[in-house]
């Protein structure tokens, strides 16, 4: 995009970048209203098509919170959502519309699995750390492709990152059928299992909740620190106005690159967490749409670390509950996607929709 458009493209969200507590409260109220409205829209759709929305939502609720087991599963799903949301928020606050989290997660998963399978002779802890770094590097490199094209060649990052998502999907499909396929896997498209000693420890026995969840929480803390650091403030200024940023002597392309790199690394770590915490091998469905859902979480959370934590939890519940709903109430999981889309549009229109009621 030309520099003038890059400057002004985000006027819709730029005004709410720094968040004192009062506006945060407004945001929480508006976000909650948006979520409720989205659930109503989804319910109306079910009603029109002759399903029972109350039964669907009840099954969704019990699916997400019914037992300790279900609840830990919600935290398991919140892990990648939180990492992706924090990652996305860094780019979005810099007005870089990186929607490439799916692809970056995939590359993180590929790099870290490769290190787990092919690097030999390291003590387990060191090996795990190396795989972690490789995951971050994979996501970082993938996001930097779009970052460089954006910063120096003005290529619209929405298009480049969405194209890179498709490319990553095919790359993964190729690898698990070719160079990285499990030779003893009966031709299933998947890699061999990673060594057992590299599996992330469980936080609660007999659940899938693992150390990756703590890594996600650490990312939230990192974000809180980041926005108070010089880097964070520079990123925010570049996001507010490219022209002002250049005027006060900031290196705009370099700031964009830094934001993109940090963001890609965090998303790559999300891919690492899914492999080493849950699946223990590379499979095609490694992202399960969490890259895109993480963006919704970031927006609903107002790009604020605390807000995003709450939103990640809610959407994780929606995913876990949505799966249960599909099984028990025979309501397609796509309902959750519809709710996601509605949430984005409602959150975006909230200034217009809720202005009179909440201020």
């Amino acid at each position: 995009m030309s520099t003038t458009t890059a400057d002004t493209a985000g006027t819709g969200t730029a005004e709410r970048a720094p968040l004192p507590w009062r506006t945060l409260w407004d945001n929480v109220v508006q976000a909650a209203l948006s979520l409720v409205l989205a659930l109503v829209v989804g319910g109306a759709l079910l009603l029109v098509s002759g399903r029972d929305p109350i039964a669907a939502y009840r099954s969704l609720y019990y699916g997400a919170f019914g037992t300790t087991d279900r609840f830990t599963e919600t935290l398991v799903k919140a892990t990648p959502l939180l990492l992706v949301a924090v990652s996305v928020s860094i780019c979005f606050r810099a007005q870089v519309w990186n929607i490439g989290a799916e692809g970056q997660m995939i590359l993180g998963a590929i790099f870290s699995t490769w290190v787990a399978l092919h690097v030999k002779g390291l003590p387990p802890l060191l090996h795990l750390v190396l795989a972690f770094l490789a995951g971050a590097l994979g996501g970082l490199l993938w996001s930097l492709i779009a970052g460089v094209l954006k910063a120096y060649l003005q290529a619209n990052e929405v298009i480049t990152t969405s194209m890179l998502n498709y490319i990553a999907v095919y790359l993964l499909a190729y690898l698990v059928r070719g160079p990285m396929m499990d030779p003893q896997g009966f031709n299933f498209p998947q890699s061999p299992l990673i060594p057992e000693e590299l599996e992330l420890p469980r936080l609660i026995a007999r659940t899938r909740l693992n150390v990756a969840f703590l890594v996600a929480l650490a990312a939230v803390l990192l974000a809180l620190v980041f926005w108070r650091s010089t880097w964070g403030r520079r990123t925010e200024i570049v996001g507010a106005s490219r022209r002002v940023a250049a005027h006060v002597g900031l290196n705009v392309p370099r700031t964009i690159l830094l934001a993109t790199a940090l963001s890609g690394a965090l998303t790559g770590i999300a891919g690492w967490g899914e492999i080493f915490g849950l699946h223990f091998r590379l499979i095609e469905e490694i992202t399960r749409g969490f890259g895109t859902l993480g963006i919704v979480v970031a927006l609903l959370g107002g790009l604020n670390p605390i807000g995003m934590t709450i939103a990640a939890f809610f959407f994780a519940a929606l995913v876990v509950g949505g799966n249960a709903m599909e099984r028990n109430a025979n309501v397609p999981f796509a309902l959750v996607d519809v709710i996601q889309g509605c949430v984005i549009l409602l959150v975006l229109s909230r200034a217009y929709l809720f202005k009179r009621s909440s201020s």
Partner: protein
Amino acid sequence: MNWDLITVSFVVGVLASAVRWAAPILYAALGEVFTERAGILNLGLEGIMLMGALSGFIGAYNSGSLWIGLLLAALVGMAMGLLMAFVSVTARANQVVAGLGITILGGGLSTLLFRLFFGLRTRPPTIKTFKVHSLPLLGDLPIVGEVLFEHNVMVYLVFILVGVAWVVLYRTRFGLALRAVGERPEAADTRGLNVTALRYISLMIGGAMAGLGGAYLPLADLGIFWTQMTAGRGFIAVAVVVFSRWDPVRALWGALVFGGAAALQTALQTLRAPIDSELLLMLPYIVTIIVLVGISRRAEFPGAFAVPYSRGEK
């Protein structure tokens, strides 16, 4: 690699297939030219195309008429455009994120409605697609005839629409008004043009066209619907519009470049090129990025591109 297969008729077949690949992208891109000329970036094309594919399929399946399917696809696409207009023009939200919302909504809603309509089936419901008609005289031309004039009616329709779009954009008062609103909304407003109304209309045109482009896949090509069947064509259409520098005729060339990349990929698979099919499938997406990079520095976006307009706030 099996070089013996490369004959004249094979090459002609690849070129004809490039035209067929280009058609759905071109529908969406032509509409987006109008939308962006009015100063709005609609990145929701992908979701609108999916809704068009679904409603086109349902319309044709239930009525038995492909034309009713097309009509429904255009109307549903228009409604999605209207939604985008409300969020981006009336609520003045960030257009990039709004487009993403439309894309996610369209993807989810099309999947959900398909399941609610048809349930889970072992064999997917199918429809008969538009037949291929060889145009009289033109279709008999050697090579050119087969590449350009042996297609289904939706391909011919989109060629005609390229001309229509050009005339509307450059030779009518409406086109002039639209361009004025995209370049300098304040000035257009002062001269009595209704900026809001024109932007709404531009998004409804764009939505209807994207709906038709999406409907191309089940109605003119595949005869079935599946989740996310557009596979990024909406985003590619946006790239085509940047490539076209907001001109309908150049959009035709742009769509053919991407159609060519896609057709080349299938051709290489047929030729048993020593490259895995998964890697070949990346080709159209890689070409999109390369072309976008090549064009972006020189592209001059409409003056008020992606900027929400409000009277008296300057």
